[in-house]
């Protein structure tokens, strides 16, 4: 066997409410491209952030080149030759390309006081050349496209001469030719002896570029196999393991033909281009696409959170003017953000308060006081109906798990009598077990005649839950598929159909 550069063994890491890593492991060889795959929430990014010094592990061992090491900070990781390109871009938009590439390692002028801009500009040009990029190193990063910014991150990683390079979904925002370029660089680095970790959801890519694949599920290690000896189907079955949909019913029955929400030609700068769609009563309409495709932006436009340039919205056949979330709620539309902790809940308040937060006016007494017996009643009703696991309605929301927090938010919008519910990544960061409960809940809501828009990056979730799927790419709707037509390949094709 070739040189083992890195061994991570029995790594555990818990976040409040979630056991993110539970006996995870990884072995990297010198000069290999190693895929790390798993569903969202499987712990890939967390494991790599432990390696890159972003998170501290709770327990486990990291052995680098035969020596056990501790990696307490990103700086320590860099010094050990470990470099990570994060999924969310980590650049300083106000600085130039060269300044970003050399942040933290600025060479000084002769007296050691001034910065040597010339040196970093020259060195950056060399790295950019290696990437076949014709960019002025003095360009402000904020003025570059997302794809170019991604390449700057890669340039930064290259400048380290790292022995381990981790790329977390590097291709999510890139075009085909940019991906080719990236892979060319990956192969080059591999041939030079770097171990490249490639986290990706695009399984064809993994076949194309990687030598070995490590599969994770629910924070645990599943297996490591040679890429050439395995099939995409096999990888998928290892990733999914037991089906998480087992307790959810089959594709729900046909919704009625009554259109409750219609968007026509919604346009907002470069984010949304002529977006039109219909939502039927009792329907779950899936929104699929890559990160940045405009799905969340669509939801925010409908919900009145962002101002649009043009376009019309009809609710139950009537044209409405939604200028703010307050208007949207008035028309019975609710938006459940993927960032529940920031936008969905007041974490420090109890279940009862959160449940009635959007509809206090219904519970006001004669003097403007809150009728507590009524709020208690409604909170208890929803705790029961939605099976929220909480010791009491006086429990603070922050002490509950992600799945139960999501249920409280659903309860809140049901209390507010909304019947069009827009879910943005409804199961993100929720334990696998709790996911199926959320799925069941969505199905039940649809059956009761609520209409649901479900934005999701998890293809199995979209495929399994939706009556219809709308696919977006670069702010446009690139296709609509019925549950019968939709499959992983078709959705991915539409999701990458760039103009």
């Amino acid at each position: 066997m070739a040189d083992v550069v890195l061994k991570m063994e029995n790594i555990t890491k818990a976040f409040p409410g979630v056991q993110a890593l539970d006996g995870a492991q990884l072995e990297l060889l010198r000069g290999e491209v190693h895929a790390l795959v798993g569903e969202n929430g499987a712990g890939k990014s967390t494991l790599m952030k432990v390696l890159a010094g972003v998170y501290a592990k709770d327990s486990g061992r990291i052995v680098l080149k035969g020596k056990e090491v501790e990696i307490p900070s990103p700086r320590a990781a860099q010094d050990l030759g470990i470099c990570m390109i994060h999924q969310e871009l980590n650049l300083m938009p106000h600085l130039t390309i060269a300044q970003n590439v050399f942040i933290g390692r600025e060479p000084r002028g002769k007296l050691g006081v001034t910065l040597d801009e010339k040196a970093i500009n020259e060195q950056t040009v060399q790295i950019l050349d290696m990437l076949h990029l014709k960019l002025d190193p003095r360009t402000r990063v904020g003025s570059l496209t997302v794809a170019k910014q991604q390449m700057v991150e890669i340039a930064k990683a290259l400048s380290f001469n790292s022995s381990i390079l981790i790329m977390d979904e590097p291709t999510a925002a890139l075009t085909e030719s940019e991906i080719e370029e990236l892979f060319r660089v990956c192969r080059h680095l591999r041939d030079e002896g770097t171990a490249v970790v490639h986290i990706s959801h695009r399984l064809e890519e993994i076949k194309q570029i990687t030598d070995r694949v490590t599969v994770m599920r629910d924070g645990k290690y599943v297996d490591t196999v040679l890429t050439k000896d395995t099939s995409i189907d096999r990888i998928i079955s290892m990733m999914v393991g037991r089906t998480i949909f087992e307790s959810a019913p089959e594709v729900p029955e046909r919704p009625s033909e009554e259109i409750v929400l219609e968007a026509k030609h919604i346009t907002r700068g470069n984010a949304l281009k002529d977006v039109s769609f219909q939502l039927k009563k009792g329907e779950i309409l899936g929104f699929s696409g890559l990160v940045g495709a405009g799905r969340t932006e669509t939801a925010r436009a409908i919900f009145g959170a962002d101002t649009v340039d043009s376009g019309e919205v009809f609710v139950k056949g009537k044209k409405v003017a939604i200028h703010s979330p307050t208007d949207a709620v008035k028309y019975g539309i609710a938006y459940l953000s993927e960032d529940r902790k920031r936008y969905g809940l007041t974490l420090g308040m109890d279940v009862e308060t959160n449940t009635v937060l959007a509809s206090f006016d219904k519970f006001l007494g004669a003097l403007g006081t809150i009728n507590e017996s009524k709020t208690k009643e409604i909170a208890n009703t929803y705790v029961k109906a939605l099976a929220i696991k909480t010791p009491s309605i006086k429990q603070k929301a922050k002490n509950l798990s992600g799945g139960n927090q999501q249920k409280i938010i659903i309860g809140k919008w049901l209390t507010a009598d909304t019947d069009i519910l827009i879910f943005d990544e409804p199961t993100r960061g929720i334990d696998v077990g709790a996911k199926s409960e959320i799925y069941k809940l969505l199905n039940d809501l649809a059956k009761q005649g609520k209409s649901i828009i479900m934005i999701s990056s998890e293809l199995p979730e979209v495929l399994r839950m939706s009556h219809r799927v709308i696919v977006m790419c670069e702010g446009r709707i690139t296709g609509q598929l019925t549950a019968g037509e939709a499959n992983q390949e078709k959705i991915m094709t539409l999701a990458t159909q760039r103009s």
Partner: protein
Amino acid sequence: MEATTKAAKTPLMKSDAAQRILAFAALILLIIVFSVASPNFLKFENLVGILLATAVNGILALGVTFVIITSGIDLSIGTVMSLSAVMTGVFITDMGLPIPIGILGGLLTGTLAGLLNGVIIARLKVPPFIATLGMLNVAKGLALVLSHLKPIYFNDTPGFNQLVMSSLIGSIIPGADVPNAVLIMFGAAILAAFILNKTLLGRYTFALGSNEEATRLSGVNVNKWKIIVYGLCGFFSGLAGVVIAARLNSAQPALGQGYELDAIAAAVIGGVSLSGGEGTILGTIIGAFIISVLSNGLRILSVPQEWQTVVTGAIVILAVYLDIARRRK
């Protein structure tokens, strides 16, 4: 060298250039309007008055520019300035130490207060607004305690006042009696511009304000640099304290509060973004001049002091609004 200069300027020139040009145009416009409205405005004595009035606020604004670029705020600069002035008085008048020691003591007082702000913000994670609001009161109280509620005069050391109020320029070019205080401000501005554009501290000031988490993940010791930035801001407050003490020939313990708002206003008017990552020293200096030209001009036109305050306040709101409107696009 040419390329180096250009590269250093690139990140500063582009996006806030608009506001700076706007600020500069506003300054010129104000000068034109006031000189048309009053024949006294362009008189040499009045212009010197404006320069002198800008000196202290300008120096304070330089320091807070760094802090605001990191997307922080420092509300304590005004009272830290008073505390530094009082400490200078304590050293020179009360303790009879030589003038240079007194000046050093004043600068050190400001720097220490700034560093303490930085430690509280970076290490204890107290939001800058609250931490420096606390420091505002701490410094104000200490200044009153140390001075026993009374101004400390520098009557026995006339050299201290002359240091700031005599005119080096006047001794070279007869008649051009611009007090040294003005030179000190421009000297401080050049130092600040050098630090901001040419040194690691300047680079990390922008990096912190642009994306603190990314800076941290790049292996930069974010806390350390934040503390240094607040320390630098404190240093400039200390310098302002020394200058104002020498100019007034007395350390006035209760003078400083309110100065912080003028200084922050100067920076913001000059295009320093309250959301961080953007700003220039030139812009800040232009902003400081706008404020003093405005209050000088209004005074010449016999607009009451109270109304001057109202106008300054309105202009700050306008400047911040323009900044936000620009960003929204």
